[in-house]
């Protein structure tokens, strides 16, 4: 056994150990955060927490209006953002491809993907809220939709690109018009991947606070009126966590636990049921 051989083997062992350590570190972070969430949030979770609305400190409130508001706004944002993003993705892969416009759109999309969400919120405030002179659930949804779109555009484009060209060509050869090829071949084949992207976007926007601060504001009362300020979980969590009242702080942790559970189950469901290799965004 030459020295070189031993050295190589040692380096290999070292590298593999470090890699395993890295894996462990990653898992430790995850476990620690989840543990803290459960430890601090569990005591506050009850039927009451989920089914009564927010109240003043000591008033024995819950999170119902915040949960409902978040649900409404996230859902609306997805309803608005997904079709738009699908069309943009379609343009990028099926029509524009390597044209200058397509390259510009791709570049801009990546920038939007990394833009701080507070700037998106401020933008909607300037062009919408200030013009109509009130905060609203709609404004919140628009801001969230602007966050959904870049994510879904990116995923859709990646998924559409994975569809082999010969599938498209086969459809064309059979006489199918372009729109049928897009709808019945490309979209159909990549639908699980696209859906994954949509669900990942949902997970992302469910926890966003900054874009809602100046658009949906928040609402301490029950309201399902999208044209009025709307309660939402992230803002309530933020306000309550920074307050001095123990019951509010408890609600903040419980709300945080609820959001995380929702987002994580969404992620798990996506991966387990659909079993495809989703690109992470």
């Amino acid at each position, binding site marked *: 056994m030459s020295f070189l051989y031993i050295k190589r083997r040692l380096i290999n062992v070292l590298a593999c150990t470090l890699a395993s350590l890295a894996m462990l570190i990653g898992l430790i972070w995850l476990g620690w955060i989840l543990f803290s969430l459960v430890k601090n949030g569990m005591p506050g979770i009850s039927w009451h927490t989920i089914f009564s609305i927010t*109240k*003043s400190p000591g*008033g024995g409130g819950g999170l119902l209006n915040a949960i409902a508001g978040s*649900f*409404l706004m996230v859902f609306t944002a997805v309803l608005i953002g997904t079709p738009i993003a699908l069309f943009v993705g379609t343009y990028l892969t099926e029509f524009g491809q390597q044209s200058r416009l397509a390259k510009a759109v791709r570049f801009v999309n990546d920038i939007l993907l990394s833009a701080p969400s507070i700037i998106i919120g401020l933008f909607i405030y300037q062009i919408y809220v*200030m013009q109509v002179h009130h905060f609203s659930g709609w404004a919140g949804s628009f801001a969230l939709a602007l966050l959904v779109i870049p994510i879904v555009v990116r995923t859709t484009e990646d998924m559409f690109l994975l569809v082999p060209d010969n599938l498209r060509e086969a459809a064309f050869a059979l006489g199918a018009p372009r729109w049928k090829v897009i709808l019945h071949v490309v979209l159909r084949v990549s639908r699980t991947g696209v859906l994954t992207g949509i669900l990942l976007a949902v997970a992302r926007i469910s926890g966003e606070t900054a874009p809602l601060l*100046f658009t949906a504001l*928040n609402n301490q009362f*029950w309201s399902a009126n999208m044209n009025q300020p709307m309660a939402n979980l992230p803002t309530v969590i933020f306000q309550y966590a920074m307050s*001095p009242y123990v019951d509010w702080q408890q609600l903040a942790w419980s709300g945080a636990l609820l959001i995380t559970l929702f987002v994580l189950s969404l992620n798990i469901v996506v991966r387990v049921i659909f079993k495809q290799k989703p690109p992470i965004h």
Partner: protein
Amino acid sequence: MKNKILSFLLVSFFTLLSTPLFAGMTLIGAGATFPYPLYTKWAESYDKQTGVSFNYQPIGSGGGLKQIQNGTVDFGASDKPLSMAELKASDLVQFPTVVGGVVPVVNIAGITSGQVKLSGTVLADIYLGKIKKWNDPKITALNPGVTLPDSMITVVHRSDGSGTTFLFTDYLSKVSEGWKKQVGSDTAVSWPAGIGGKGNEGVASYVQRVKGSIGYVEYAFAQQNNLAYLQMINDSGQAVLPSLKTFEAASANANWKTDTQFAEILTNQPGANSWPIAGATFILMKRIQPDPEKGRVVLNFFAWGYQDGKALATEMDYVPLPAPVVALVQKFWKENILNKSDKPIWP
């Protein structure tokens, strides 16, 4: 299965959307974080009694001003009163609602609430970074009989803008020429020393954890977090503890004037029992109300708060305005908050 999930989502979505809209009115206010817990409690009570709901959101005093200027809320709230020039520029009116106090808190081994006394100048010097240790002669001179350790002082201030900072720095500016020149007063300043905590909670948590630290928080935070607060030596030379009584004493001696639209900053007020770092919180409304009916409802709410809301305020450690000031405020409403044809909208 997927279709079932989708239809469930759609059904719940539209069910939620179709819940009947509010029978009563909903009004929106936004701004200062200091009175937020109180306004929330008031709003709940008022809603129960009258069916009119007031949605108040604590986006910060600056935020409150911005929103009332843009007309996106029915009233704004600010911990810092505006000057006459600022009020004229945006055509707003302001009036106070309640009074509260800002309390310096410390974390010194063996020290409990009220054991240590500081004067305004010493406090300013600590925050200027001039006094660095707890057993500095300037501090020990004020505290005979109290053992102060030979350790560094860690100064904690706010990292975000806030009315609490405004009151605190305003006090320091009044008692220390050096502070006034070097730093000044505002909702956010350029701090010469120390670390910044986010929100009252952030400051409270740093003071709790860092030994030898000093910070400033709203009274409610000091109470709720069992922080050791200080006695302050006020303008009359008396050492006072922070309490509703001493806050009230500060506001009682205030010179509320309508010609400055109540822009009284209650720091360093005269009076043997006055807490030196007290302040009122203000409501901002448009002088000419675009919707006089809404404006009237808003004023009714605050009139209710001055009367029926008193008990709730004291419960939550806020000081209600004394009756003569309330009368002054309501007279002010009659004379200054008008509709488009220049007629008063209240009562």
